[in-house]
């Protein structure tokens, strides 16, 4: 190993960190917007309320992304989360008419069930995760339509109002608090527990994992169940906030989720990644769409710019991975 000076070492460490490339892109984007926006819309971008707002808007993406991180690290993918979220919000809205507990527990259980189905197909029957979850996705989505026949369901419950609009210490909104809890717990599981460590192993080399006595299939199934659970949790916060659910709710949200995870430096090949990176990922997306409002961009501008920024951010991450296996 050749010796280098302290700060370059620090710099190296920073680059080694998952999603640091995106972090760079994010920071520069924020700076750019906060400089430009006053001249365009006169809006102050970098304010506490705005930051909190981004967190709150990304709550449900964030929660799902945490689950997705597990799935992707274990070398699989779940394209059905969008439809799961839709189905679960719709169901949650229905349940809410039978009382809070029914709503919350009903939704969570069903989340687990949906996840279980994916897990069954992927690790039980060893089917290709990408395609299977594509399939289950369209099934769940269709179910949401069929069950509701498209009708917007409305949830009414005081507890929900509290979850949706309440806040802790007066400045941390309830949904954000829930998300933070999920983030911390999942980060802990991933980094510090046997389960987490073995998820990495499975993603890196399933065969070797099996030869080391890891019950890979069970573990993979569990990651999907976790993902389903997260969707349920997200559905609850979503309902709590908007008190209404229609089957159009979460069309295409899975893309946002996957982008968040991958932007965070989690390898789509599995075996590498972190929750911390995922947090950067979904904040990045949140700050972007929020920033576009500050720049008074219209939809097509947003899409073009978003696409370009994404490519750049991802390219940076690839570039700094060069030379490492």
């Amino acid at each position: 190993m050749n010796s280098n000076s302290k700060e370059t070492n620090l710099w190296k460490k920073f680059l080694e960190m998952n999603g640091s490339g995106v972090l760079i892109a994010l920071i520069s984007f924020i700076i750019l917007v906060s400089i430009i926006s006053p001249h365009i819309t006169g809006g102050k971008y970098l304010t506490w309320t705005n930051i909190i707002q981004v967190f709150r808007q990304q709550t449900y993406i964030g929660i799902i992304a945490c689950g997705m991180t597990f799935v992707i690290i274990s070398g699989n993918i779940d394209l059905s989360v969008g439809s799961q979220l839709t189905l679960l919000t719709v169901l949650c809205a229905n349940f809410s008419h039978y009382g809070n507990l029914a709503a919350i527990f009903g939704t969570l259980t069903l989340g687990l069930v949906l996840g279980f189905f994916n897990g069954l197909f992927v690790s039980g029957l060893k089917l290709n995760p990408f395609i299977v979850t594509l399939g289950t996705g369209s099934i769940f989505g269709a179910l949401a339509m069929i069950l509701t026949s498209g009708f917007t369901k409305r949830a009414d419950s005081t507890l929900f109002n509290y979850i949706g609009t309440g806040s802790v210490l007066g400045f941390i909104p309830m949904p954000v608090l829930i998300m933070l809890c999920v983030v911390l717990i999942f980060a802990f599981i991933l980094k510090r527990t046997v389960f987490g460590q073995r998820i990495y192993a499975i993603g890196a080399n399933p065969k070797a994992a099996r030869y080391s006595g890891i019950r890979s299939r069970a573990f993979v199934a569990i990651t999907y169940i976790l993902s389903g659970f997260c969707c349920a949790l997200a559905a609850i916060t979503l309902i709590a906030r908007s008190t209404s659910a229609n089957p159009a709710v979460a069309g295409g949200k899975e893309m946002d989720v996957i982008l968040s995870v991958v932007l965070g430096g989690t390898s789509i090949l599995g075996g590498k990644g972190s929750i911390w990176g995922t947090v950067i990922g979904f904040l990045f997306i949140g700050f972007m769409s929020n920033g576009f409002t500050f720049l008074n961009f219209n939809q097509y501008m947003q899409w073009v710019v978003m696409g370009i920024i994404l490519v750049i951010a991802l390219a940076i991450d690839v570039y700094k991975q060069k030379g490492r296996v």
Partner: protein
Amino acid sequence: DSSKKNTAADSGPEKEKAYTIGYCTMGYSIAPWVLFLGDNLKAECEKRGWKFNMLSAEGDSELQAEQIQTMISKKPDLILIFAGDASLCVDWVKDIDAAGIHSVLVGMDVKEEGRKYATAFVGPDQEQMTYNVASEIIKEYGPDAGLTIAQIGGVPQQYDYIVRVKGFNEACKNTNYTLIEPEWAHSNRADAQGKMENLLATYGDKIDILMGYDDDLTLGAVAAIEEAGLTGKIKVYSITGMVEALHAIEEGRMVMTVQNSTAEIARVCGNVMDKILSGESVEYNNPSELFYITKENVADYKGEF
């Protein structure tokens, strides 16, 4: 010319013939309003003991074009169309006409060049609807009040939203109002709330008026306004007329909504279909009444959903 078309007159004397009505909608479940339109039309037909066949394109005009063809090949007595795109609809009514079937446009009219092929149009002029809302605003504050107006819509490429935005902006042309780029919530109330938060974070109380193009979404935005404690400061105008919206108006969280009543449309449509199928001639335009609901008259109405 509806003479050559097969009507009760030439399809047998019996009055109580069970007709089949084909309904091609741009999307059954993409928004509550569309859904209720479908259900009410269905009710109208079944009330008369007619068969009601629905094909829904879920927002995909390409698919709707296919479904029109499918519907034609089914040879119903009359085809109702809630068009996803007024200009493409020209071709559709042409084909339907060529197949010798009556076509009635519901909720959304076809472009001029198509009107000679269609038998009738039922429903409000959506462009006019938002135009009128804007006129109300102008009447209220005057054209040079320098208002800042935020807009929130559903799906950017969905035709009914496109015309609504168009109508509103037309009306605002010769004023000195500043219209912020519309935000699109993709038929998701939570998103609408988020978008509104962003707008508030950006413009704060600079925003004088919010124009919402669908109550379901408007209500999301209203929630955001409440949280920001700007209720009453920001005047909220909207359309469709949901129950919740009427409550909001009563409680002063919204100023106005337009009840574009699907029941009303369906009722008128029913009468029109009766006429057509019994061979009578009908006006092309059959406007359904629009109700502009404000605090004053809100008590007289009850929302549909």
